[in-house]
């Protein structure tokens, strides 16, 4: 290349800068799309690998119906291939926002589907988090993004994902309240020392940090036993806050697994071997565990019962004591009402007045009595005096009388002795006489006695005289006293009157007092009443609280009982990383991106090369004269060509480099960011993929340099004079259509010109046609996928679909065929019509393979208790004919996708692996199905295949149509949601039902993801096809206009209006567009068929049929693109300067 030629090359680049740039851009677009899309899938895998290995995602997850303890951990750690084992536990609760200012009631938070926000509180070991080495032996570790680690039991960290999805929900230093759903959270976790329990049974957590976690990748977080059954969020709290002695999950790290990237066959193989070991040893370790906890449980239950009884008694007593209180209170209230009324006051007044009157009366009576007493001439003193005198007289008379009696007796005794003459006794007689008579004692002989007798007799007579005197005296005094009689009676009346008046006065004063202080009294009474009322309320609350406590301990007791009951059936659920929400889907997404990355960029490449080809050809054509001149000047064909090759190579390389840079830098990140809506993978490492870059550069060079070579070689070989002469304009030619005069003669000139033009520029027409076709086909694919994603759920779940049942209930213990005891929980609801029908079934995740198939595919086995009426719950249709299928006893029905993956057909045999059991089953029919793989088997065939009777672990439920949510908006759902939740709760509160899952929950959560995916797909496809249509149509139209500028100017001079001139160009476009759209619609069908199969993740079959709206939309959107280009061209055509265009000649 001479210096002059080099200069010319550079200058021609500068002069045709816009053309150069347009080639660069087109190439960059093609290469960018290619390399970028190719880099997405490996980039996503690398991102996942980074996260999983840095945060030690567990390889195997074990869950047990009886929990784990440290013994289990050590037992599993001893198994071969196990590197480390971490115990983990959680509790699910309902999220509340702490009460707002001025309120005591916390506000229940709602999840995205409107159900209660179910929050998983996960115990995490934060010890040693500052030391990397110490963390290495733990699994599922966290990475702090913001804030700090929790330090005590009431601090928590929240996922960065939750924080991003709902920034208003969680923020640093925010306080949230988690309450147990029908259980006390404090039964499981404790508050930090010094933190008081508030909001009965809830725990308040302060968010102190934001973390990344490897275990929740997707927005869909899985199932929960609490709330609406769907987990909405999760927080991590310090492990030591949990005070129950068991763990819920056992995380296992497989030795050497970190050497392999996730989602690879090597990794899967390694983990699967260890998992098999774990499964083999499960029963042994479980037996040890059940042996350990059995007695403990029994003890716990016994204690619990005792406690419960005691508590019940207490509450009963309280209840009894309280029983009459309300009635009493009511009585008092009525009284109070009466007592404090005006009426009552009036009554008080009346009472007072009556008392006053009584008092007056008493006073009158008293006055009368008093006057009467006063009227007597003597006083009470006189009466007492007379009484005394009479008493004295009486006593005197009695004394005298007694002396006489005694004296007589002594005389008689002495006379007797004397008469007897007994000398010995004379002394006695003297003694007696001398005692009773005051005389000198005589001699102790008869004489002496006789004398003394004589003397005594005299004395006696005297004494009798004295007695008589006393008697008279007495009678006198008695008569005197008797005169006091009337006086005493009056006195008595007076005394009574006095008493009466005193009493009346007291009463009157009392009444007066009441009357005077009525207001104060009333107030006091009111207060007393209120006090009583309050006391009652407190007592009632106490009672209520006691009842709650009882309910709580009853539940705990029932849980323990259930656990004990199921202990013999204890089992482990072993999962690999599929267990972690989003793990599998992320891998499948990466896979489907891989498929897109093949189909999609090739299309773009093709278009880029077509466009650069036409542009380069045009350039060479324009330079014909110069080429001729150079050739005439003696330059060789090669050195002339070098200019164009250099030009093309420069454009191609520049475009390729630009495209590679943009492709690797932006496209994976852009798509990754879009996917971050669905998956929480924090960052995607930048990836450079040399092979892809090389392919891109090579393809870019082929399409530019190749195009140049093709047209240069053709031209440069010619003789200089030929080159220097302008290429004769292509002659008009007759087209086939002209042979059909009927049509031809009815065509306008534009029509004729158009028809001939189409034939004349076959290449360009073909390219336009191809571009439009590709655009339409892309749109068919894009809308088709969109429709597929959008309608898949509706075809799988709900009425008129496959899975027609509304909910499924897990039984605590599998049910024997015909054993209706466990179904009693549903009876009541069947009676009320909330549940319309039930069907026990055995649904089990298992693995399927077949002869000559190198791996096992996870699938679900479904065995209904009876095949009759099964179609009310699951409606099976033949994959090909669409006819309804009956479940028979001569084989299994499997879904189409499963049959497709394994390459089996009707009559073939597949093997089911259920734990250690295996069964060969014959494929009887193949059914439609979209989500998961299913193997349907009748119970009889199950027995035949597995050699054991089928126990049913599920009950499928059909709900009353009033309880269905489909088609309702969030507002309308509210009440129904509550009813459903209540139904689920009532069922799970029975001993038989473990959990209830509603299909609508799946539809809502999966539906949300699917709609995000659908929107992403649609936007990508519409944008891509739009770019395609624009690039192709714009370039070709520009060339078309450029080539026909004289024609256009001429017809404008002839008086064609703008519209007519436009039509001169448009007609061609329109025809090509219509043809291209038609072809694209047709072409879209097989492409869609291919891509939809490639894009499918293994566990799903997308809807593979296209519906009319897809075609209509694809056609219309393409038409809109074409019209858009035509609008741009309109201005281009309008700006043609007739004078300029007609001046030159070619």
């Amino acid at each position: 290349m001479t210096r002059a030629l080099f200069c010319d090359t550079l200058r021609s680049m500068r002069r045709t800068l816009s053309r150069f740039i347009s080639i660069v851009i087109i190439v960059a677009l093609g290469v960018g799309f290619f390399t970028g899309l190719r880099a997405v899938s490996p980039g996503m895998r690398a991102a996942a690998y980074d996260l999983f290995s840095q945060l030690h995602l567990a390889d195997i997850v074990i869950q047990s119906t009886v929990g784990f303890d440290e013994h289990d951990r050590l037992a599993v750690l001893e198994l071969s291939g196990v590197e480390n084992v971490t115990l983990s536990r959680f509790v699910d609760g309902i999220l509340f926002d702490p009460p707002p200012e001025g309120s005591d009631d916390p506000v229940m938070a709602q999840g995205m589907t409107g159900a209660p926000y179910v929050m998983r509180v996960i115990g995490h070991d934060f010890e040693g988090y500052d030391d990397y080495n110490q963390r290495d032996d733990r699994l599922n570790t966290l990475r702090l993004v913001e804030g700090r680690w929790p330090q005590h039991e009431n601090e928590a960290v929240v996922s960065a994902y939750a924080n991003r999805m709902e920034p208003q929900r969680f923020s640093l230093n925010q306080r949230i309240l988690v309450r147990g759903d029908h259980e006390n959270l404090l039964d499981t976790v404790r508050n930090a020392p010094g933190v008081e329990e508030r909001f009965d049974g809830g725990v308040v957590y302060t968010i102190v940090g934001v973390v990344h976690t490897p275990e929740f990748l997707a927005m869909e977080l899985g199932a929960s036993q609490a709330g609406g059954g769907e987990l909405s969020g999760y927080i991590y709290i310090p492990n030591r806050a949990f005070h129950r002695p068991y763990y819920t999950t056992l995380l296992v790290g497989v030795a050497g697994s970190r050497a392999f990237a996730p989602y690879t066959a090597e990794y899967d193989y390694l983990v699967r071997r260890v998992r098999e070991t774990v499964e083999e040893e499960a029963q042994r370790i479980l037996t040890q565990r059940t042996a350990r906890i059995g007695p403990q449980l029994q003890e716990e239950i016994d204690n619990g019962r005792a406690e419960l009884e005691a508590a019940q008694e207490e509450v009963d007593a309280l209840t009894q004591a309280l029983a009459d209180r309300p009635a009493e209170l009511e009585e008092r209230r009525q009284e109070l009402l009466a007592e404090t009324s005006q009426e009552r006051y009036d009554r008080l007044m009346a009472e007072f007045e009556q008392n006053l009157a009584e008092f007056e009366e008493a006073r009158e009576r008293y006055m009368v009595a008093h006057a009467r007493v006063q009227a007597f001439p003597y006083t009470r003193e006189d009466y007492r005096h007379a009484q005394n005198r009479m008493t004295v007289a009486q006593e005197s008379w009695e004394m005298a009388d007694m002396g006489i009696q005694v004296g007589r007796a002594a005389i008689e005794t002495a006379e007797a002795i004397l008469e007897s003459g007994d000398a010995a006794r004379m002394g006695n007689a003297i003694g007696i006489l001398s005692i009773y008579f005051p005389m000198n004692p005589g001699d102790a002989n008869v004489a002496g006695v006789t004398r003394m007798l004589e003397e005594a007799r005299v004395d006696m007579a005297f004494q009798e005289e004295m007695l008589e005197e006393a008697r008279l005296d007495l009678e006198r005094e008695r008569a005197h006293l008797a005169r006091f009689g009337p006086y005493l009676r009056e006195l008595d009346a007076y005394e009574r009157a006095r008493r009466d008046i005193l009493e009346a006065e007291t009463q009157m004063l009392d009444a007066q007092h009441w009357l005077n202080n009525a207001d104060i009294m009333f107030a006091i009474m009111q207060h007393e009443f209120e006090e009583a009322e309050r006391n009652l309320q407190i007592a009632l609350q106490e009672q209520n609280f006691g009842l709650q406590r009882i309910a709580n301990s009853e539940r705990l007791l029932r849980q323990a009982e259930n656990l004990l009951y199921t202990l013999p059936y204890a089992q482990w659920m072993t999962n690999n990383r599929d267990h972690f929400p989003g793990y599998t889907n992320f891998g499948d997404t990466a896979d489907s991106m891989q498929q897109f990355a093949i189909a999609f960029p090739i299309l773009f490449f093709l278009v880029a090369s077509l466009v650069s080809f036409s542009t380069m050809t045009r350039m060479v054509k324009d330079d014909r004269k110069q080429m001729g001149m150079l050739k005439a000047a003696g330059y060789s064909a090669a050195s002339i060509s070098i200019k164009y090759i250099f030009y093309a190579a420069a454009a191609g390389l520049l475009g390729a480099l630009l495209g590679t840079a943009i492709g690797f830098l932006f496209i994976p990140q852009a798509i990754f960011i879009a996917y971050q809506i669905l998956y929480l993978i924090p960052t995607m490492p930048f990836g450079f993929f040399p092979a892809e870059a090389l392919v891109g550069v090579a393809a870019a060079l082929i399409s530019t340099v190749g195009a140049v070579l093709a047209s240069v070689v053709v031209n440069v070989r010619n003789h200089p004079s030929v080159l220097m002469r302008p290429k004769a304009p292509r002659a008009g030619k007759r087209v086939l259509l002209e042979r059909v005069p009927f049509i031809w003669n009815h065509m306008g000139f534009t029509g004729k010109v158009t028809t001939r033009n189409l034939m004349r520029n076959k290449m360009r027409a073909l390219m336009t046609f191809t571009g439009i076709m590709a655009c339409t086909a892309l749109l068919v694919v894009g809308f088709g996928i969109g429709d597929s994603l959008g309608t898949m759920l509706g075809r799988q779940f709900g009425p008129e679909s496959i899975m027609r049942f509304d909910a499924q209930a897990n039984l605590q213990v599998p049910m024997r065929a015909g054993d209706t005891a466990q179904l009693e929980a549903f009876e009541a609801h069947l009676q009320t019509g909330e549940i319309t029908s039930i069907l026990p079934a055995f649904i089990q995740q298992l693995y399927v393979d077949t002869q000559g198939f190198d791996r096992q595919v996870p699938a679900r086995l479904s065995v209904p208790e009876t095949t009759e009426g099964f179609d009310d719950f699951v409606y099976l249709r033949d994959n090909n004919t669409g006819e309804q299928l009956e479940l028979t006893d001569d084989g299994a029905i499997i879904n189409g996708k499963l049959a497709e993956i394994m390459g089996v057909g009707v009559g073939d045999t597949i093997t089911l692996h259920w734990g250690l059991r295996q069964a060969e089953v014959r494929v009887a029919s193949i059914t439609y199905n979209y989500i998961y793989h299913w193997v349907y088997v009748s119970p009889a065939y199950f027995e035949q295949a597995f050699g054991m009777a089928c126990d049913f672990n599920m009950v499928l439920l059909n709900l009353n149509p009033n309880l269905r949510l489909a088609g309702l908006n969030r507002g309308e759902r509210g009440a129904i949601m509550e009813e459903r939740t209540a139904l689920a709760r009532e069922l799970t509160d029975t001993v038989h039902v473990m959990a209830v899952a509603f299909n609508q929950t799946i539809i809502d959560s999966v539906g949300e993801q699917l709609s995000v995916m659908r929107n992403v797909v649609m936007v990508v496809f519409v944008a891509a096809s739009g770019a395609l249509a624009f690039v192709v149509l714009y370039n070709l139209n520009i060339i078309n206009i450029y080539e026909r500028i004289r024609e256009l100017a001429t017809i404008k001079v002839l008086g064609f209006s703008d519209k007519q001139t436009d039509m001169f160009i448009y007609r061609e476009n329109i025809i090509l567009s219509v043809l291209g759209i038609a072809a694209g619609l047709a072409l879209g069908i097989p492409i869609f068929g291919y891509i939809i199969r490639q894009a499918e993740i293994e566990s799903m079959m997308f809807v593979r049929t296209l519906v009319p709206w897809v075609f209509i939309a694809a056609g219309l959107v393409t038409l809109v693109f074409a019209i858009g280009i035509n609008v741009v061209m309109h201005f281009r055509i309008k700006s043609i300067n007739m004078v300029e265009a007609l001046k030159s000649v070619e």
Partner: protein
Amino acid sequence: MFCEVCGARMEENAMFCDTCGHRVMGEDAPQPVVQQQTYAPPPPPVAPQQQQFAPVPPVTRPTRKTGPAFIEFNEVSKQYIMGEVKIDALDHASFDIEEGELCLIIGSSGAGKTTALNVLGGIDSVTGGQVQVDGRTITSLSNKQLIDYRRNQVGFVFQFYNLIPNLTALENVEIATQLSKNPLKPEQVLNMVGLQDRMDSFPAQLSGGEQQRVSIARALAKNPRLLLCDEPTGALDYETGKQILQLLQDTCRQTGTTVVIISHNMAFEPIADRVVRMRSGQVYDLTVNPSPMNVADLEW
């Protein structure tokens, strides 16, 4: 690259100066093939043997005739601004043409005659002055009215024919009649120009003269009141050129169409009813020829 005549900047490889219309003759300038094949160097000016009209002293600005003429060019200016340079393609040019006349506009390259024709044809605008055709001021028509004017009033004949390559001769005529309000029958017009046998040929299959005849037929078929011809013989040999001129003169005579022909060839002057001579955008002379010569008698 700059124009040798007016000095205006020109595009690389351009064959004509945008400003003055000068055709580049430089050594390295690309030579249009057509030109090489068909261009006959203009004959040396011949002294008129028969003085059919008295030489009129040159007038730079002829005064307007009284009473409205069919075409009135009134102080028309057309100024291009190229960077800092202003170029006057038309500089206060004024002339009239009566209805039914065959008018010849004569001038060397860059004299402004093509610009004048373009303005007359409604495909170029002016920067000053007025042009009236049949009482209508076409310089102030809207775009839409201009299209209508071009469609119904004017027939254009180009130096390089500008036929639509994809249409046959007949169709090329029909494309015009399709637009016009009262067109002539295309076959009839082609008959008129003597192409009855080549009606179904594509332009590429026709000779230059035949193509120009199709072009004239296309212009005539619209039954225009005004036929504008831009160097209609420029790309043709002598005989063919003469035939074309004859055709134009006959058309003028037989149909009463006003015909305006642009030429740099002063030998054509005798055949015209009216001759407008231009130089540097100005009309410096206007001659009315009361008894024009028949083309058949013209020799050059």
